[in-house]
């Protein structure tokens, strides 16, 4: 038997391949999670490896991770929600399982990269006219639907117009309302005629529901995407095979099976037991279990996944500004991020924009801190001594955050009652109805769109009924502004208006937390939804 001590290479020569399984695992995880070189070295040196050896391992580990993609293999993915309402019609996509199927079967005009810049997909080129009142899209030639028919501008115009007009039932009708009409201007060219100028249109066109279907259909599983649909049973599973006639390089996996496991414990167990290779929505309680299990990784992507308490401004108590300020100051934000989100989140500053939105985030705006004295002052000034919050588990941790506020309120003599209601029916019966209620918002691709849907005067989902004229002006004019400094100043003004005046309390943003098997490589990190905003099917490969 080899002596395992004398057989070891000297530290300076230590390479990634010399590490034992646990060591490799550690480096793999660190590299894959996108830890910086400095962070990885710190971790390794803490375990007693010298600096030279650590940096050696890090570089060779990175090489090991950056191998060229391999073809072949198949994976199973389990989403947290599914049921008989699973859809193949992109205009009605509402959950991660729909989005993922959409990404395997169809394509959009543009695609989001990890930093949310729009990349050409079915549109080879897209450009606005001078004042962004018209956008021209050049459609890629030589693209075929799975049934063999070629993609033309007719399909694009038809698909996009399904989101507009009176008859439309599209879930993103309000999001795309800046477009008046889509028009065909050539066999492979079309134009979006704008109602209001919008310089961010391509970014919005990368979202889940904008998939291109064949003219005259509702999708029905016939798209131009990287996988063909083999079978689809709503609420059970779907099977997808690689599209060998794809218009670009194409997927690495041979096949994908997409299913749902609604029970959070069962989902984690299925990941750890190896029955599923990708699962969405890991609960805070299961972080340790996933992190300590062999062969799986907790994928935590910083995002502006909003944890919010809406105080409706059109009724008491929210119409009283001091009540809202009291609610804002009583939030123990640090503790929510540390204890409730287990560190996998970031502080909220009572605006829907976070650093995940990039340069549009107003970092100059001072962070509002936990201040019971100020809260007490404002509650007292408001003359209100009790209020009731409607809470449903619409996102992980939101109930605990409200309970924490309840405890802190009771310490300063304010009676915050918590009314627990089920998620079932919440969006129709409670949200935007009860005076104080909780909300969660997925991250939207731009700061402007995030604020417009929620804080635009009269917007369909203005869930605190806070209507500010200045806000409305800025939301329109910022889209036409091309000077980055002026644009940032406008962004800051809007975020300050929301931070000071709106009825929205946003103590924290949650990361997106999913689990994947360790042998999955090339995982995208787009922060707009679970599992890299479901962009993975075309890009991942198995090591």
């Amino acid at each position, binding site marked *: 038997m080899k002596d395992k001590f004398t057989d070891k290479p000297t530290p300076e020569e230590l390479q990634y391949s010399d590490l034992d399984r646990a060591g490799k695992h550690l480096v793999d995880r660190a590299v894959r999670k996108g830890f910086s070189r400095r962070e990885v070295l710190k971790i390794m040196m803490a375990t007693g490896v010298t600096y030279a050896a650590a940096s050696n391992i890090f570089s060779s580990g990175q090489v090991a991770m950056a191998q060229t993609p391999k073809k072949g293999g198949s994976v199973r993915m*389990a989403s947290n929600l599914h*049921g008989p*309402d699973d859809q193949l019609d992109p205009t009605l996509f509402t959950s991660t399982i729909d989005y993922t199927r959409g990404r395997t079967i169809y394509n959009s005009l543009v695609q989001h990269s990890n930093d949310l810049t729009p990349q050409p997909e079915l549109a080879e080129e897209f450009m606005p006219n001078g004042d962004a009142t018209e956008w021209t899209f050049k459609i890629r030639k030589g693209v075929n639907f799975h049934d063999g028919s070629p993609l033309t501008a007719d399909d694009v115009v038809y698909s996009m117009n399904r989101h507009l007009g009176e008859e439309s039932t599209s879930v993103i009708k309000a999001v795309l309302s800046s477009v008046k009409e889509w028009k065909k201007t050539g066999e492979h060219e079309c134009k979006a005629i704008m109602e209001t100028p919008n310089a961010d249109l391509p970014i919005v066109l990368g979202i889940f529901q904008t998939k291109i279907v064949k003219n005259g259909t509702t999708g029905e599983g016939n798209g131009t995407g990287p996988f063909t649909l083999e079978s689809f049973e709503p609420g059970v599973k779907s099977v997808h095979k690689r599209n060998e006639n794809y218009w670009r390089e194409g997927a690495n996996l041979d096949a994908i099976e997409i299913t749902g496991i609604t029970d959070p414990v069962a989902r984690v167990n299925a990941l750890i037991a190896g029955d599923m290779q990708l699962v969405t929505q890991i609960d805070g309680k299961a972080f340790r279990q996933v992190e300590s299990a062999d062969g799986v990784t907790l994928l935590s992507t910083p995002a502006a996944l909003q944890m919010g308490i809406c105080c409706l401004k059109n009724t008491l108590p929210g119409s009283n500004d001091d009540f809202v300020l009291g609610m804002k100051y009583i939030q123990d934000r640090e503790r929510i991020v540390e204890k409730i989100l287990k560190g996998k989140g970031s502080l909220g500053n009572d605006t829907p924009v976070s650093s995940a939105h990039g340069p549009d985030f107003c970092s100059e705006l001072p962070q509002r801190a936990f201040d019971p004295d100020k809260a007490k002052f404002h509650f007292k000034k408001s003359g209100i001594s009790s209020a009731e919050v409607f809470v449903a588990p619409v996102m992980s941790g939101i109930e605990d955050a409200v309970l924490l506020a309840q405890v802190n309120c009771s310490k300063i003599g304010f009676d915050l009652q918590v009314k627990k209601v089920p998620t079932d029916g919440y969006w129709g*019966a409670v949200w935007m109805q009860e005076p104080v209620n909780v909300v969660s918002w997925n991250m939207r691709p731009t700061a402007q769109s995030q604020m417009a849907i929620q804080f635009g005067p009269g917007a369909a989902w203005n869930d605190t009924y806070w209507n500010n004229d200045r806000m409305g002006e800025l939301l329109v004019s910022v889209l036409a502004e091309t000077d980055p400094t002026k644009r940032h100043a406008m962004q800051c003004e809007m975020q300050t208006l929301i931070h000071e005046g709106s009825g929205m309390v946003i103590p924290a943003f949650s990361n997106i937390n999913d689990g994947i098997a360790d042998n999955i490589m090339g995982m995208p990190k787009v922060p707009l939804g679970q599992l890299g905003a479901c962009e993975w099917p075309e890009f991942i490969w198995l090591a």
Partner: protein
Amino acid sequence: MMMQMVLRRIAIGFATLIVVSIIVFLATSILPGDVAQIILGQSATPETLAALRAELGMDLPAYMRYFAWLGNMASGDLGISKAGGATIASLIGGRFGNTMMMAGFVALISIPISIALGLWAAMHPGTWLDRSVTFCTLSLISVPEFFIATVLVLILAVELHWLPSTAYMTGDENFFQLMKALAMPLITLVIVVSAQMIRMTRAGILNVMNSPYIEMAILKGVPKGRIILRHAFFNAIGPIVNVIALNLAYLVSGVVIVETIFAYPGLAKLMIDGVQTRDLPLVQACAMIFCGTYVILILTADVASILSNPRLRQPK
């Protein structure tokens, strides 16, 4: 006589189905939100809601929707899922098969085991064997099924990697692979339903054992085994068959927790999903299946107990 009873019971069964369908319809209508609100969820706007309601025929008054459904049902058309657009028949088809398969396997394993163990315990009342059976069944009845299921998953799937943690079926597995996929929910359900049936069998037999004619048989010196199998068992069949029928009906309609934990696509979970999306035709179809199952199984149990007991065959 018997025939008349069966026919009368079938007629009552149909009346029950109608009443249940009305109650389910009303109950689903009382829930907050309709299918359009649930489909559009957080993304709903008044315009898209109105457009979707019109598309789904939700703008008709409730009683008209009920009678439209009843008419279609009578002609064998289960309708179309409001939430997803698939036909109800296609949604139910595969899951009905899955539910029946699971219920069938569980029944095949648990009924013989339960009756054997129940008889065995009844033949030796008061011994350590009887006590341990009683102790085990009582403990298992008191433990909720999700707990049994979760413990089994932790041990057999997560720690030992012997069995898959979910009942995921690819559709092209052989019998052995199928059994492996279904093993966990099967074990859980067998444990849950057997405990109750064992206790009922034991109690039923012991109850009969106290009656004078058994005493007579004992005095005559009939061997104990013969007393139980020949004299007591047939008189205890009535309650035993009834508890078996109720457990079978539970296996068809009530195993939603086990289906959820093992992600097994069965009917009970489908009905819950239907309620959550306010998908009335789907909920109604499931309710009719469950109600029908109860009617048929209880009727069968009653017929069996009448046949096994000559006194019940003659009207008083």
